[in-house]
């Protein structure tokens, strides 16, 4: 193994690095409306967002072995000419360093059809764990803070695990079983 000067990469000067804030990577991929059209093309959507009571939250947490069951779940019934086309459920997960909004499309019988990430925020300044920081997203119209189609920062580094999404999907399926299956 030999070391040499190479020109296919540029080392960022220490000065730039020193003044840069802690790395924060935020991307909006899709709006809710775009996700609806992508996952159920041509369908009509009825807002069926629902509150989840504390006893229900306990059941869902137990059934899915996940914590952090939200008090409300935003969801839509997708309908086309022949009836119910499925469900679109909007969900959020909070990891150690990331805050992710995503949409799950379910078939009428409750099978996962597709999962799309709508917004990914990554932060290494500790804000994710701060409840007040979380609170600022509550009630915000989704996607209002970041413009779509901005410059995408392509990042290569440590692989980020999508385990939180897997847990979130399991929790949403438990929510479906409890609240939507017999609808």
């Amino acid at each position: 193994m030999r070391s040499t000067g190479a020109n296919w990469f540029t080392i960022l000067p220490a000065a730039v690095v020193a003044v840069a804030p802690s790395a924060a990577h935020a991307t909006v991929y899709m709006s809710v409306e775009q996700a609806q059209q992508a996952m159920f093309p041509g369908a009509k959507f009825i807002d069926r967002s629902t509150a989840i009571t504390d006893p229900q939250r306990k059941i869902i947490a137990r059934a899915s072995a996940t914590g952090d069951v939200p008090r409300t779940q935003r969801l839509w019934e997708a309908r086309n000419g022949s009836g119910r086309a499925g469900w679109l459920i909007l969900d959020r997960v909070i990891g150690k360093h990331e805050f992710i909004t995503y949409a799950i499309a379910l078939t009428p019988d409750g099978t996962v059809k597709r999962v799309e990430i709508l917004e990914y925020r990554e932060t290494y300044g500790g804000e994710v764990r701060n409840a007040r920081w979380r609170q600022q997203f509550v009630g915000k119209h989704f996607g209002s803070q970041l413009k779509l189609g901005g410059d995408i920062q392509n990042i290569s580094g440590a692989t980020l695990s999508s385990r939180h999404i897997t847990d979130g999907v399991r929790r949403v399926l438990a929510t479906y079983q409890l609240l939507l299956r017999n609808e």
Partner: protein
Amino acid sequence: MSDRITRCRPLLGTFVEVTADSDPAIEAAFQAIARVHDLMSAHAPDSDVSRINRFAHEHPIEVDPQTATVLERALHWSKQSAGAFDVVAAGAAAIRSGQLPLHPGQPKPRAAHWSWVEVCDLTVGFLRPGCMDLGGIAKGYAVDRAVAAMKALGALSGLVNAGGDMAGFGPRSWPAQVVQPESRRAIANVGVSNGAIATSSLQPDGSAGHLVGRAAGLVSATVCAPSAMDADALTKIVLSGSPAAGTCLKQAGAQAFVLTAEGAIRAIEPELEAA
């Protein structure tokens, strides 16, 4: 250039971003990646890889041509690196650390080695009970397949980024940043132009479990290569500090740099022909 679209889905245990000019190209790329995920995930009990891990020590297992391709390339790099890259050692380590489950009927792997695997056309056998984890190479392969799928649809440009393993094509270079694994602070700018780049690190999110024989003093390794599959595998060989790294890089037409524990960036030159 027409409007570029970027979409992101959770696949291959990470976040996969696809950028292209049209929805059909993006859909084709995700389909290609989902196919690799379904074949090679060691988490799903009925994937090719899990069937190998459960039964290949008893009888040969028939696999999809894609799985055979990845496995053959993995064994190639194991041999070239004298085991610095080893999907069987990685699998045993992942079981030990609890990162991979033991499926019904799956034997607990003991001390394990890549040379226990036999690939013959589309069948795979284990000479002794073992467990393979293709996580260190299949992600790169999935990226290559996604690029091929977009090109097959006539896409003129595109970029696929599977958790830092990326490949791009088109008339211009795609700008990317290599980050320090823990702080995510940008350490280098690179351009991805009709080729691939991959980074592996010893740091968070469990990715260290894949790495066997890690070299002291290195934090991450970044490899630029014509194929993402090779770039993915070579990051592990470079990060291990294997003396074969230079030869392997040359063979793949690749280049590399490492981030050291002291924060320095050092280029690794592909070995020249022996003088």
